[in-house]
């Protein structure tokens, strides 16, 4: 049988292709943000769109996040489907009122009469010495607040499919992409930032986690970069005779509880890994889920690995010390299986 030739794309091109296909399909879709036009987005998420659609549908804005995210709300209430880019998630501080007090709450406060089909697209993640104000993921900050779907895809395939889902969703969706998984020439070159992406439009559903590696001895839950770290750790664990099951969470809201609970029924051990801060975060939420609904399936207490509760430091040894990586996951997993 002839093997189908697979087309490979980087993460950023997968996102841009998703947006392009939806803009071709629906004239109400448009993009707005800082440097999304001729530059193509600082992390390439709108690459080529300005050249195809022009300045009326790919709109460079002033550095006025409150005004342009608020304008996305106003335009969405009028039936448009805006995609707005918050360049770094860290910048949420200058515009969070529009995000959580308005975008997230207006549909609810209106009793469902006002729909806000907005995609708030934003770059997350560290590991390249960009320091405390440009390296956070802040997954839990957004996932904590009701009224927004929050997704964080890990592969080019999922970035495209989940972006199409997000654009077609009638609810506000916070779409987080990881900078180092965009496959940009000026960052670390990771194999994970390139992958097979079909040319046509397709959907990856929001709210569904994915078992990216099957195993029987331990469940490792990751998201975005930590999923890739977990897969690398799983290879090393296999050399020690341990079969790790790795779950890529993909969506924080809605959270796919079932996939996690099914997995711990099988493996009886749970390690949760996050590139966000440890306390009050995603790892705590999943540990609570396991405690509330899966406690009797566990043979050992849940372990968590995340950024200890300090801002992301600049200097390379300091930053590498606080970020999770494959080695740290391997060691945590070894401790857990030996308990």
């Amino acid at each position, binding site marked *: 049988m002839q093997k189908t030739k697979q087309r490979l794309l980087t993460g950023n091109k997968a996102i841009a292709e998703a947006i392009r296909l939806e803009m071709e399909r629906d004239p109400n879709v448009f993009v707005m943000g800082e440097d999304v036009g001729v530059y193509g987005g600082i992390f390439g998420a709108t690459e080529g769109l300005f050249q195809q659609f022009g300045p009326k549908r790919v709109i460079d804005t002033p550095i*006025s996040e409150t*005004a342009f995210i*608020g304008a996305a709300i*106003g335009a969405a209430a009028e039936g448009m489907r805006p995609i707005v880019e918050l360049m770094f998630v860290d910048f949420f501080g200058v515009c969070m009122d529009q995000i959580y007090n308005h975008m997230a709450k207006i549909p*609810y406060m*209106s*009793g469902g009469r*006002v729909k806000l089909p907005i995609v708030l697209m934003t770059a997350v993640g560290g590991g390249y010495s960009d320091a405390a104000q440009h390296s956070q993921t802040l997954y839990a900050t957004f996932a904590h607040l009701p009224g927004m779907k929050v997704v964080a895809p890990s592969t080019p395939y999922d970035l495209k499919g989940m972006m199409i889902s997000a654009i077609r969703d009638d*609810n506000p969706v916070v779409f987080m992409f990881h900078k180092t998984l965009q496959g940009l020439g000026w960052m670390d070159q990771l194999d994970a930032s390139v992958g097979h992406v079909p040319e046509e439009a397709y959907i990856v559903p929001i709210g569904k986690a994915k078992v990216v590696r099957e195993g029987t001895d331990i469940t490792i839950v990751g998201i975005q970069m930590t999923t890739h770290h977990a897969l690398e750790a799983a290879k090393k664990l296999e050399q020690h005779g341990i079969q790790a099951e790795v779950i890529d969470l993909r969506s924080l809201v809605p959270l796919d509880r079932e996939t996690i609970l099914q997995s711990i029924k099988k493996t009886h051990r749970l390690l949760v890994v996050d590139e966000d801060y440890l306390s009050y975060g995603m790892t705590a939420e999943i540990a609570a889920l396991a405690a509330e609904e899966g406690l009797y399936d566990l043979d050992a207490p849940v372990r968590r690995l995340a950024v200890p509760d300090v801002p992301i430091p600049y200097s390379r040894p300091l930053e590498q010390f606080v970020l999770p990586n494959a080695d740290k996951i391997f060691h945590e997993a070894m401790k857990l299986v030996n308990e």
Partner: protein
Amino acid sequence: MTISIDHLIWMYETMYKIRYYEDKMAEAYAEGKNPVFNIGAGPVPGEMHLATGQEPAAVGICVHLKKEDTVTSPHRPHHHAIAKGVNLNRMTAEIFGKVTGLGKGKGGHMHLFDPDVKFSCGGIVGAGIPHALGAALAAKKKGTDWVAVAFIGEGAANQGAFHESLNMAALWNLPLIVVIENNQYGISVPKSASTSVPSNDIRAVAYGIKGYYVKDNDPIEMYNVSKEAVERARKGEGPSIIEIETYRYLGHFQGDPEVYRDKNEVALLREKDPIVRMRQFLMKEHGIEEQRLIELENKARQEVEAAYQFARESDYPEPEDALKDLFV
């Protein structure tokens, strides 16, 4: 400028309706809160910001608007909502927390949304301006002549959202009109202690747009400048700022001890009340018979009474309805 008699009559009866609505709301709000004031008690709990005295700002511009035009409003929204034609029964039911309300009881008095007439409001100072900006952007993208009006208080003109939005509206030449109701106080702080310029229309210069100033709570002057601002916006001539000098007869919220102003201040303001002035103006300058005005007033009162009755007789939502409507 000559004003059509229909417009004058509409402005008068709408101001009258607003005043009567707010007076009724003050009474309803006080129920269950005597002799001890408890903000959470009575048929209308929570904060209550009434617009008594500020009617000219709402009617002077809304008379020029159509259903397709967007209005955003702040925490003191009733006069704007009534002038924009929000469903009075459902609005009142919302304020009473009833299932028949605009938001099925999830919003309350500061969060009224009526997409049928493109009205919304919110409790965060200045935050509605970007929403109107987005509506203006959508109007332009769709190739319509629709406009968007953001009502704010003078305190909101010191928020970043005001300046960011006006810069973008000017940059993109959008049909946005920001109406600043200068009711003299940001809660307790007088404008002179919060704002670096004597009036905010001056700030239009900073964005290269039109600025208008309306003195002494005058509905006719508000009508005139609004007409020009709305016509300019419809013709693609860009955004404007209108500041109107207006007065809030009541506290910032009901229950405000008002320690920051002289007790006689409001009494003096009521002597030159804009609704009384307009009534006299209609009779003296336009020969409208008093009997006709009395009929209009009766009709307005009946409409308001019916809305309150509808709200009181409606059911509360089921408690577990709190879990619905998060996502569509």
